[in-house]
């Protein structure tokens, strides 16, 4: 057993290493660029920065009110996530597990909800603005519901696919024990679906964190701006401060990486191959 495993393992380490490095290379490149001046970026592309000056980062800190941008973004992310998790998990559970009078209804509703995957968000910009105007929703409120709406297709796709694979015996056992629907959901289903919930959370947090088009048209008050709008502070009409954009992107990216790292470890990792209903 031992010998058989060691050779492939070395190969795997090697492969993993190569893939990781290749994937990360552009990032490293970006980090290097963030220490260069604009002139260096365009005229001496592959040289190392003349000095690891923090000039760009300084400029970003001076131009942007990062604290406010972070808190605005976090607020929208949290509210959006809570709402969408509750409603999409519930509706996906219905579609995955509950019995319908006509099975056709179930697939019709499912297909209806998946359609959104084919839509590129910018198409919705003007109509959503108009709808928000009619409903009288402004600023952040006008942003949260569209974000929830755009997450529905993806969440439904993932939740339904995974909830379906959960073994039915556990549900039956719980019900026989006198479980109500909500108890079933919270105490049985949700814990079993943790990996996919974590995945959905990660993806949606990232989406909202980085979202730009809707944020730019719905947020008028600069004190409500989110991080993604911060980068636009470096795009003038006749000059684009690429170095500034890159440096500000680093500020936007780092929290996301940390978030992913923590979330990943605690939730997905927490379940080893044996513990899931086996």
């Amino acid at each position: 057993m031992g010998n058989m495993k060691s050779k492939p393992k070395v190969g795997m380490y090697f492969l993993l290493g190569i893939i990781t490095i290749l994937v990360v290379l552009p990032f490293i490149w970006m980090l290097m660029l963030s220490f260069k001046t604009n002139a260096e970026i365009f005229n001496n592309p592959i040289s190392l920065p003349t000095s690891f000056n923090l000039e760009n980062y300084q400029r970003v800190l001076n131009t942007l009110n990062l604290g406010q941008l972070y808190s605005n973004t976090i607020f929208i992310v949290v509210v959006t996530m809570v709402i969408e998790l509750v409603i999409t998990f519930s509706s996906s559970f219905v579609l995955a597990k509950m019995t319908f009078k006509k099975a056709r209804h179930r697939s019709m509703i499912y297909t209806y909800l998946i359609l959104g995957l084919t839509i590129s968000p910018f198409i919705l910009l003007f109509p959503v603005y108009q709808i928000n105007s009619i409903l009288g929703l402004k600023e952040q409120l006008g942003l949260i519901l569209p974000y929830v709406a755009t997450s529905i297709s993806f969440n439904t796709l993932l939740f339904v696919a995974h909830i379906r694979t959960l073994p039915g015996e556990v549900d039956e056992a719980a019900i026989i024990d006198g479980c109500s629907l909500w108890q079933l959901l919270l105490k049985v289903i949700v814990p079993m679906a943790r990996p996919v919930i974590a995945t959905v959370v990660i993806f949606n947090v990232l989406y909202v964190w980085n979202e730009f088009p809707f944020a730019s048209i719905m947020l008028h008050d600069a004190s409500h701006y989110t991080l993604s709008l911060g980068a636009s502070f470096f795009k003038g009409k006749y000059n684009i401060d690429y170095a500034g954009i890159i440096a500000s992107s680093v500020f936007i990216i780092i929290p996301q990486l940390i978030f992913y790292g923590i979330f990943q470890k605690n939730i997905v990792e927490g379940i080893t191959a044996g513990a899931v209903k086996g």
Partner: protein
Amino acid sequence: MRKVLKRTTALGLCAALAFSLAGCAAGTNNSSVAGSAAASTVGSAAGSAAGTGKTTITLGMHVANVDAQEPVTGQIVKAFEKANPDITVEVQGNDKDEHVKKMKLAAQSNELPDIFWMDSSVAPQLNEAGKLLDLSEFLKQNPDINAGLSDNMKVASQAGGKQYGLPYQALVTGIWYNKDLFKKAGIDAPKNGTTYDELMSMVKALNAKGITPIAQGAKDTYSVWAFLIGLERYGYFNKIDNILAGKEKFNNPDFVKYFEKMSALGRAKAFPSNCATSTYFQAKEQFNASKAAMFDSGVWDAGALDKTIGTNIGFWWGPTFSDSSAKQTVSMDASSAPLCVSKAVGDNEAKKNAVYKFLAFYYGKDAAKISYEGSIIPATNYKIDVNLDSKPAFKAVVDALQDRSWVSPKAQPDLVLSEAVQAQLYDSMYGTMLGTYTPKEALDKLDKVQQQQ
């Protein structure tokens, strides 16, 4: 773990509730000044803060960071507020594409800012939809300003007898050149009056020395300023009215000749090898680093060029053509995109007075001085004394403007076209320069798009 999850969910829901209540309050508030860039709400209807005697007007700009990207305007606003302590100007901006999008949306829900920059091809549409205030009254009430603005400047934003806007600044474009690089190549630098044939030999000589002749970036399709001037040297404004009315075509012998010249320049490698993937900004960096001998842009870069190229800088209006019957001594000093005023302002007496005061300041002598000192040519033509010794680039432009034998057409050729045709013009010009289209193909595309309007 389950308990944790349950508690987290419950906490999350409570937090969400609390947040959304707080968010509700924040969302409907008009403005909360916090930290950096001045905050404002677009089109705050409740402009006058009751009881304090202060009026607030909103200014919508086409850059997100006014102080860094349009510093002259930022300074003018501050100077105005200082001179008028009872008026506050809330500046709000987004980068140009977002700004235009937002203004279009704001027009629909009647939430336009009081004063705002607008793209030249979009402003007429806003006017037709009745969203802009006619500034003829303002001009009548301010005869000095009326006199200080040339006819070119006013005509650019007039339609149906209405003055729907006034120029944001003067649009002065041309070709910058680096005297030093020409010396290195052993040839004379260009000057006003240099012909196209002379330009071609310059291109050859520069390429021989490994110097990029003209820095251009095709990714920013609009960055063909100097070549737009060339259109007028082939009689653009004699023809354009007929073309727009459908009586003539873009594909006419004069324009074909001109496009053939652009094509020849491309084939002679006058432009950078990565022109197709370069932005205008990259082209500028090339010129700043003295890697390109010439640079197609305008007076707005004077400030930066003063620092990077210094006294080696030169400025000219572009090559003249011997096979054209139109006037060759064409310069460019016309209206840039306009500042417009929302129609709603006219219904609020206090606001209107404040807005008029701002405009009077913006188009007054003090603001003109601030502009010159910031290396920007204002829309007005007052004689202002500014020391230009430390500004060789700006001085080069001012000198060129003072040679009155070179006359500007009433507008930059692209700004009288609709959005779609304008976009096609840029595409056709760059396409010809890059060799993607033949001259006739490029012009036919223009005609096709024009027909669809």
